[in-house]
């Protein structure tokens, strides 16, 4: 039991994986987006909004003055309404869409989902985004208004900053990384990356790798956790990492490897070790790591 727990912990260091059992009975194990990812997604969205606002404002100002349009009043109305809609509708429209993610979230590979596992509804999207007003825009607009009026004393600045910090750090203080908006809407933000299917490493043909042969004792030296680390190293394909790992493994299993052959050796060992462990798996023995039997 204790061992199972340590394995689960090793796979999920921040405790962010949640069960999501589909009606077909398969647990999809969704991973919640961590605070850093969410902050970067939000900042990307802010950049998009500001860029759009600046570009459109400039285009209308220059376009209209080029047309000899002197009366600024209708422009002013359109601009006010436009800024308002941009801020309030941007998030809602994109999150209510098919991918349930703003461009910023798409770029960092996350999306909004309902905590219950059911479909995301429009009212949930609206609730979580209206709360953003008090989380971010309220303290900022108070500070901006006070600052432009020249009455931003230390106390209001501190109050505004503490307020903003309190709300923006809120996700760090609960298990599910919920903002206040998520809490009220019954949503959370999960990782939904688009992954390409990577090549199967054990099908790699390498003429030098074919020369390596391993005995049963040599393959018993490691378990699944080490195999997956090895897979990572092989996919990263970094020369010095490959060399260091090859040295460690060859020392442990007592094989002789030239540094130039590190990659070939690791490819061969990975293929054999995986087949060995998969065979054990088929026979009902999941060898979690090198300490397991």
């Amino acid at each position: 039991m204790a061992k199972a727990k340590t394995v689960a912990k090793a796979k999920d260091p921040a405790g962010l994986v949640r069960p999501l059992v589909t009606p077909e009975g398969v647990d999809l194990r969704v991973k919640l987006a961590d605070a850093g990812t969410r902050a970067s997604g939000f900042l990307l969205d802010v950049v998009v909004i500001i860029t759009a606002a600046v570009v459109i404002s400039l285009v209308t100002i220059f376009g209209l003055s080029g047309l000899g349009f002197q009366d600024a009043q209708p422009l002013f109305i359109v601009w006010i309404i436009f800024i308002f809609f941009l801020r309030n509708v941007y998030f809602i429209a994109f999150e209510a869409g098919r991918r349930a993610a703003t461009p910023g979230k798409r770029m960092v590979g996350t999306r909004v989902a309902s905590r219950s596992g059911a479909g995301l509804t429009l009212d949930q999207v609206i609730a979580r985004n209206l709360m953003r007003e008090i989380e971010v825009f309220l303290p900022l607009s108070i500070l901006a208004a006070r600052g432009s009026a020249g009455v931003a004393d230390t106390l209001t600045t501190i109050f505004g900053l503490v307020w903003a910090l309190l709300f923006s750090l809120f996700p760090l203080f609960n298990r599910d990384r919920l903002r206040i908006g998520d809490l009220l809407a019954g949503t959370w933000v999960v990782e939904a990356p688009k992954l390409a299917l990577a090549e199967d490493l054990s099908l790699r043909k390498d003429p030098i790798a074919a020369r390596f042969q391993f005995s049963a004792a040599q393959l018993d030296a490691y378990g699944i956790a080490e195999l997956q680390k090895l897979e990572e190293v092989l996919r990263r394909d970094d020369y010095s990492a490959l060399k260091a790992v090859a040295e460690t493994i060859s020392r442990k299993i007592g094989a002789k490897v030239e540094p130039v052959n590190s990659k070939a050796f690791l490819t061969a060992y990975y293929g054999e070790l995986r087949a060995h462990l998969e065979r054990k798996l088929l026979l009902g023995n999941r060898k979690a790591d090198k300490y397991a039997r």
Partner: protein
Amino acid sequence: MTLSAGTDAVRQSLASFRQEREADWKAFEALLARVEKRAPRTLSEGELLSLPLLYRSALSSLSVARATSLDSALIAYLEALCLRGYFYLYGARRSLRTRIGDFFLHDWPAAIRDLWREIWTSVGLTVIGAIAGYWLVASDKRWYDAIIAPSLAGGRNPDSSAETLRSVLYGGGDHFLSGFAAYLFTHNTQVSILAFALGFAFAVPSVLIILMNGCMLGAIFQIYAAKGLGFELGGWLSIHGTTELFAIAIAGAAGMRIGTSIAFPGELTRMAAAARAGRVAATAMVGVTVMLLFAGLLEGIGRQTITSDVARYSIGGGMLALWFCYFYLFRMVRHGES
């Protein structure tokens, strides 16, 4: 050695598992990428029917891979693919048109009816605030500047002459007025959003915002009533004010609903109660924005062009009656619902 023969067989069978299924996964991925970008009706009938089949096949591949394969890249790929498929297929996807239709025919009035107790509390608080504001300014006119920010007062204050006050009420075609209406629209929407969003702090801020809003109303009313222009101001305000004040009251009510359900969650957990209240409140809030848009239009178009008091009162009263009928009398029964 028996070992290598055994591992080779395992390698063979797992490699063929991947080879056999890979085409299906790729097809599912391509199909998903298409339906996520465009509406599902761009798919042919065959493709549409194959979507759930491919999803289930990917899920079963995932189960097999988890049980037999140790290729973590493969499992991660299948998990991501199945999750995308799950969100798409079980996302209860309705077209935007039916969603909007449902909102106006059913969801919005239902949310307002659901919030009736909070709405009456909120209306009551506005009235109390108005009385307090009136009384405060009547007792000492310096209260006026404390209650109403000079930027919103627009030059109206207790020392203005009756002519100045009257000219605001009946002055036609003010140059910057439509800009001012748009500003008021965003201002009122922000007041409403605040009254809603701050509700989670046990409803206290919402109550304060609604009281303050009532106070401002009472204060303006006092300076007009003192000059004998109370009836005229009522007309000027009511043309859009009935819609606008009702909307702000609803926003406060939505905030109070959230605050009270966090404070008194009943049988649910606090989180679940908050989530449930949040969804009703959010629906009401979208309605509030629509109402404020109406109020902004009435204000921008009607207030300066219609200068007869009777017409103003009847438009204001008519709008209020319209909202009441829509929220409380109009009930649409959807098919399949009792």
